[in-house]
């Protein structure tokens, strides 16, 4: 859908700020929506499996690998676990603003606004630094 808007805008003239705003708006909306659906699905599975147990959050214990890394997470989801599926939804949520940044870099590139290509690129670099 987004690629269609981009090519349409490009065919008329160079991409304008208003087009960028529309695409960024829908990118954010669908990202949050998709993540909410995944979190809700995982939540239902989790409550169905563990709803009658007693919660333990008073002391901090940290999370296992399947809650922090994508590989073990997907394997656990394959086994039908709910908590890693919730966590996958949270990953989609976290990826949404990052996708917005990446998209903006291309947008500014089309606009030939190279100063903002650099500024946005540095922000992206700082964000990705955290996940290494």
């Amino acid at each position, binding site marked *: 859908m987004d690629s269609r808007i981009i090519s349409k805008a490009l065919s008329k003239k160079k991409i304008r700020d208003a087009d960028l705003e529309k695409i960024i708006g829908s990118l954010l909306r669908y990202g949050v929506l998709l*993540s909410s659906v995944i979190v809700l699905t995982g939540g239902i599975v989790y409550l169905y499996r563990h709803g*009658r*147990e007693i919660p333990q*959050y008073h002391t901090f214990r940290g999370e296992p690998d399947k809650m922090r890394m994508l590989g073990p997470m997907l394997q656990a989801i394959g086994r039908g676990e709910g908590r890693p599926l919730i*966590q996958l939804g949270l990953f989609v949520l*976290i990826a949404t603003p*990052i996708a917005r940044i990446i998209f*903006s870099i291309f947008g500014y590139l089309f606009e030939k606004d190279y100063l903002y290509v650099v*500024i946005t690129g*540095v922000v992206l670099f700082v964000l990705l630094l955290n996940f290494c």
Partner: protein
Amino acid sequence: MTILVFTGVLFLGAMAAGLLGSLTGLGGGVVLIPLMTLVFKVDIHYAIGTSLVSVIATSSGAAAAYVREGITNIRLGMFLELATTLGAIGGAWLAASLPTSFIAILFGVILILSAIASFAKLADPVFTDDGSPLSRLLRLNNSYPTPGGEKRYTVKNIVGGFLMMNVAGIISGLLGIGSGALKVIAMDNIMRVPFKVSTTTSNFMIGVTAVASVGIYLHKGYIDPGLSMPVMLGVLLGAFIGSRILAKAKVASLKILFAGVVLVLAIEMIYNGFTHNI
């Protein structure tokens, strides 16, 4: 209390926090963290991680609407995100090494300041001159839609605003809140951006700022799905309802009520920090 009941009660609490946060503009995080630590006795690191996740959700959800209306100054947001993301990373590292009692006390102090700031008189004389060379170079001067047509404005004191945003980023990463109040002060009182533009641009930046520190929280295992699920969904729903009734609600009296609640929570957090109960 079973997990089912715990999840349900947490969901309702998060919904109330999201509703109040969006009606008063203070954000959901300031109520969520005291609610989780004081009422549900959740470890404060888990509470901060959970709050960060909900902050990303509400910020992105609301930004989607504002950006389309053309009020948000996206260039200003992108430029200031440089300051907030760098600050947020520093804040998250600090949080991992500071004792929980200290974090609780600092949280209480910031809570009181945010509540006071929400009543602060906002400077509204907006400048419409040509702006400084720096604001022209960065293309920060813009216009926004009003009932009387597009209105131009120029951005002042960019260096001062940038530094204030840096502080806002540190607070956000350290305490897991959006620190929207600080961001609005930086843009309104220092950079002289119109109120409507500063609130929506602040909201636009909050998501990216939170993402900058959430990586560290995730890596250290502070993000728990059992807590994040009811809180994220609850806050989102509450904020959505809040945005729908915002036009009809009497915001002034609500703000006083909310500030009162925040004040009590702040004192409770500080007290528990000093007695090492948190």
